[in-house]
């Protein structure tokens, strides 16, 4: 063997070895993909906005799957399948390859069955996800199931933020409010028919032609509601104060029941206005909601829809609306543009078809309900139960359609909780209608429950600081012989503000009491808003929080 042969042999071996190495026979060849994945999913679906979830443009996914390849070879032929038991059939997404250290973020926008709109209460279901892929010549499969709650069609969750994420501010508490647009139904035949009747009552009006015609049309619609005894009802006590969810009625339900909460009535009147070709908005402020209507000229008029309760004219409702609007502008508020949100895809669900004569079946007539023509809430309340209502229900025989019966005295003939409003020079709040009205003693407003166990006090003083107000209240306790056993400082909410609050444990000659005080300044005035109640009386505690929730400045 000569040197050339040996060298050639060595080079041939080197050539072969390096080519084998290049194709990966030494273990550095195509490795295997290894999947790590994470699933984020919504805990609940609001049936009322079920169409929103199926629209990727809106970005409200129900599940997000993050697939990461932590192996040293590719994952191929990746398939992600999703379904929701009974309400969304299986759909599949495909990705041909995921390189090592690569990530796929896949979003699930389910096309939900319209059957969800038949749900009247929350219904449990399952979100099922199956991921398959190939790696190293093998097929792999992973499945996961997540519980998901399908809420009833009227259920509205005001915020999707978890309690630990929320700052408790107004905007956090009501972060889902744009979805309210799905409760505004200008195309609902029931709404259109009601609006048409109102137009008829107005002597015929083309609302979109001019401001004058629009006002005429809206006045007719309002008048129809007044004649038929529409009323305002308050929310359940946990509405604004705790659970951030509410049963919101569709406008047709308001027409059927002839009553609604402020938010129901806002959606109802906005729907009616839009059915006549006008633009409408809904304003949400802490503890209240009301509609804005844009006239053909672009002028915007606020309407205090809850004033329907008092049987006032449309003009008066607008005047009240202007005051509400002014209050709204001085604090946190959100305005939703219904038409814009509808155009973006936040649209109402399909509502069940109703008979053509449903309005007459519901007792909606041009003359008003029963022998109640023009009597509005007065007559209506008079026929209600004895709970604070009815007493002043009057003018039921006033047939001119403008009867002023009812008003605050008689507006509470329904079966729900009854409330009156204290309107002071600097602030207002609601209180149980059967109680003695709060009295202003110059510097403080005082209210006592009929059983003498619950006090609600608002102390106010021009130019006072928070510290001044704390001293004023606590020295007042001392003067009255009330001992403060413990005081716990906290943050509280009132009138849309986050304020300094103190929880007191008190001892008196009559027993142990608790007090909750909120101290703040606004408009150069110092305030202390306090309520006290027998220790452990949760009912009075809740009542106090409710009243505080209705407290408004201005």
């Amino acid at each position, binding site marked *: 063997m000569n040197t050339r042969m040996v060298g*050639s042999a060595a*080079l041939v071996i080197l050539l072969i070895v390096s080519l084998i190495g*290049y194709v990966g026979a030494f273990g550095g060849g*195509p490795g295997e993909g290894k999947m790590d994945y994470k699933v984020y999913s919504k805990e609940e679906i609001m049936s009322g906005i079920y169409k929103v979830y199926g629209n990727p443009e809106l970005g409200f996914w129900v599940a997000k799957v993050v697939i990461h390849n932590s192996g*040293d070879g*590719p994952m191929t032929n990746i398939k992600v399948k999703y379904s929701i038991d009974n309400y969304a059939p299986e759909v599949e997404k495909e990705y041909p390859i995921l*390189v090592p250290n690569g990530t796929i973020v896949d979003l699930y926008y389910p096309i939900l069955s319209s059957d969800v709109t038949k749900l009247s209460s929350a219904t449990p279901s399952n979100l099922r996800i199956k991921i398959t892929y190939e790696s190293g010549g093998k097929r792999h499969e992973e499945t996961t199931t997540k519980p998901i709650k399908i809420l009833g069609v009227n259920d509205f969750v005001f915020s999707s933020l978890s309690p630990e994420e929320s700052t408790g501010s107004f*905007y956090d508490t009501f972060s889902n*409010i744009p979805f309210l647009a799905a409760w505004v139904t200008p195309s609902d035949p029931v709404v259109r028919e009601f609006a048409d009747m109102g137009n008829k009552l107005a002597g015929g009006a083309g609302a979109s032609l001019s401001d004058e015609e629009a006002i005429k049309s809206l006045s007719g619609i309002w008048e129809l509601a007044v004649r038929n005894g529409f009323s305002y009802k308050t929310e359940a006590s946990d509405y604004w104060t705790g659970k951030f969810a509410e049963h919101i009625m569709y406008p047709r339900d308001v027409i059927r029941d002839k009553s609604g909460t402020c938010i129901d009535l806002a959606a109802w009147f906005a729907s009616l206005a839009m059915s006549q070709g006008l633009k409408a908005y809904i304003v949400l402020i802490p503890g209240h909601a009301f509609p804005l209507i844009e006239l053909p000229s672009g002028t915007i008029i606020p309407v205090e829809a809850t004033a329907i309760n008092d049987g006032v004219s449309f003009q008066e409702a607008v005047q009240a609306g202007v005051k509400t609007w002014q209050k709204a502008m001085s604090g946190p508020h959100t305005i939703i543009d219904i038409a814009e949100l509808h155009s973006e895809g936040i649209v109402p669900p399909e509502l069940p078809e109703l008979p053509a004569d449903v309005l007459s079946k519901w007792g909606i007539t041009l003359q008003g309900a029963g022998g109640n023509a023009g009597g509005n809430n007065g007559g209506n309340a008079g026929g209600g139960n004895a709970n604070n209502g009815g007493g002043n229900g009057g003018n039921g025989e006033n047939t001119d359609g403008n009867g002023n019966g009812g008003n605050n005295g008689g507006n509470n003939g329904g079966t729900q909780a009854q409330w009156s409003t204290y309107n002071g020079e600097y602030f207002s709040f609601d209180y149980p209608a059967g109680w003695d009205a709060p009295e202003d003693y110059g510097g403080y407003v005082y209210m006592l429950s009929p059983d003498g166990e619950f006090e609600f006090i608002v102390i106010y003083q021009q130019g006072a600081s928070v510290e001044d107000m704390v001293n004023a209240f606590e020295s007042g306790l001392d003067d009255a012989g009330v001992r403060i056993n413990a005081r716990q400082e906290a943050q509280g909410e009132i009138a849309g503000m986050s304020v300094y609050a103190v929880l007191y444990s008190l001892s008196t000659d009559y027993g142990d009491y608790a007090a909750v005080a909120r101290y703040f300044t606004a408009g150069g005035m110092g305030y202390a808003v306090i309520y006290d109640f027998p220790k452990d009386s949760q009912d009075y505690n809740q009542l106090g929080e409710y009243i505080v929730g209705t407290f408004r400045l201005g």
Partner: protein
Amino acid sequence: MDMRTYIWVFAILMLFILPMAAAQGIKIEEYKVDGVMKVVVDECGNAHVSEVWKFTPNLYLQMKQTYPTTYMLKREFENKRSDVEYRNMRIEWDDSNNGIKADYTMLGAAVNHGSYWELDLGGDDVTLSSSNGNTLVLTAVQPIFDGQGRVIETATVVLPNDARNIRVENGVIKYELPYEEGGRNPLFLGIAGAALIGLILINVPLKRG
């Protein structure tokens, strides 16, 4: 309301500022937003992003009202809420410039479709201003608040070095970056080439002058 938009961070924030802006709809104001963004896409499809946004003072105030704390700002980018998957999110207010600065990595920003990759910038209003090799400069001008304002965004997108056949179609950057199977180490190929040359040199007689 597409969150996976060209102006990623800004788009998400504006989702929540809209109600505030609507509140101002009664009076006419002018809003301007200028954004500069750099996106470096790695070979796995992850995007490493730096963004700077400057607002007119009126809009900046509204933004601050909607997101009074940095926590609330950052919260919008929680992965459980966002439609992308972020890592290393750093976002902060810049009060002295009425702006927001953000740096983050967006996992899986570019999707491998087998024969090509796709980086969805969102919206047809993105135009290619210039390109140089694997670097693209894109601009977008969008009206906001019913024409009461406008957003101008300039984005520099740097694609992987080996990206080729790069094009922008309807706001989507497409490029090819074939996946090299593991083990095809070019070092082995180099050794094989050297061995082959050695063989030739040893065994082929060379004319020597």
